[in-house]
């Protein structure tokens, strides 16, 4: 089918059939809603069970993250129609996004390292994670490790 504006593009609305298009969108909406409800349930579960910061809690959070990624997949591939594009096009979007894998791993590791260094070397940092009390000079002092954030 000829593209309405550009002759070098072949236009291919994959949903030529109204009924199947509607079905696909409603199905995606239901999937997104159900995933959101499961995520909320798991978020409340962490709260209701008063889970300590242990492996079980991390596991539930991991499941929530994977469910969110599933939501992202459905939004991008169905709502934004990236799934209907040429493979070339999909790759030009997906491959640069892979940068986020390094981005997240590197910076989360950095955060953990900050925490460990502060706990080791900065006595102002008590277990609660806030600067120690009765140190009014800390607000005006130049940046000290752990003085802000």
């Amino acid at each position: 089918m000829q593209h309405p504006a550009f002759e070098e593009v072949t236009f291919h609305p994959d949903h030529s059939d109204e009924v199947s298009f509607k079905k696909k969108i409603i199905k995606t909406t239901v999937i997104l809603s159900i995933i959101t409800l499961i995520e909320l349930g798991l978020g409340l579960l962490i709260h209701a069970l008063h889970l300590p910061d242990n492996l079980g809690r991390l596991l539930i959070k991991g499941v929530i993250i994977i469910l969110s990624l599933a939501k992202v997949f459905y939004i991008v591939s169905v709502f934004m129609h990236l799934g209907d594009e040429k493979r070339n096009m999909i790759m030009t979007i997906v491959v640069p996004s892979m940068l986020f894998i390094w981005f997240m791993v590197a910076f989360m590791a950095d955060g953990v390292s900050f925490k460990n260094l502060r706990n080791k070397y900065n006595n102002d940092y008590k277990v609660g994670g806030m600067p120690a009390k009765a140190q009014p000079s800390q607000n005006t002092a130049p940046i000290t490790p752990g003085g802000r954030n």
Partner: protein
Amino acid sequence: MSTQTTTAQQVRWWSGGKSPFNLEYGKLMMWYFLISDALTFGGFLISYGTVRFSQNYWPDPNVVFNAFPGAGHANLPLAFVSVMTFILILSSVTMVFAVHAGHNHDKKGVIKWLFWTIIGGFAFLACQAWEWTHLITGEHLVLADGKLDMIGQTMSANPWGELVTDKAALANALNATPHDMLVKIVHSHNHTQSIQELAAMTDQQLKGMVNVAEMHIREKGPVGFGNFFYEITGFHGFHVFTGVMANIVMLVMTQKNVFEKRGHYLMIEKAGLYWHFVDLVWVFVFLCFYLI
């Protein structure tokens, strides 16, 4: 040119004469803009993660986000933000239908679905305005600098630190709390007396009306929590706002037959991509601030 005989599998996308991505220029550039915008949001969210990982304590979202409009002090964790999430998902769906109506050159359909998308966008912004107002003005008891204080969540401080369980420290803090603050604390927990009546009482009387052991008094929380919350939800809210404005422009242009005369509704598609991206970012904001 022997393209007549080539089949779909043999199309040479990169040898010129056709768009290698089989996509018009504007739509491709919208995708590339969205990639760069995703990197901006990613940078914000990842710096939030870095700061969060660098702290020994981080507030529990179920404690922070537990209010619902009109529900008073009822503890309803995550209820309001789920309403916001569903509003955004539904407005994304109406946008899909608007784009589809555009493909079919159905002007009435485009107008109808764009209208609902705009309503959804405004509803989301209204929810966010309520939430911010509630967080900023809703004051909670904290123990800070050896005194009791009442603060809301701002860029510089928030009341979401750890629960204070040391009874002696709480008793000392109550003793060190000034008169005006005592009046405020008693008034916030007991609405039977007016501010004037309470202000006329002595410190001793007021302290007798405060039971620090039952008040869930916290320390101040990590400053980064409020900072990143307002920065990132604010930046997302700004995106929603610009998206709504773009949709309104599309609605007016459709109404004025601009697309009808042009022969295609491709602009609706580009606005739609942006609008879905706003929904996409919310998935991550929702995940990072409210769920985990």
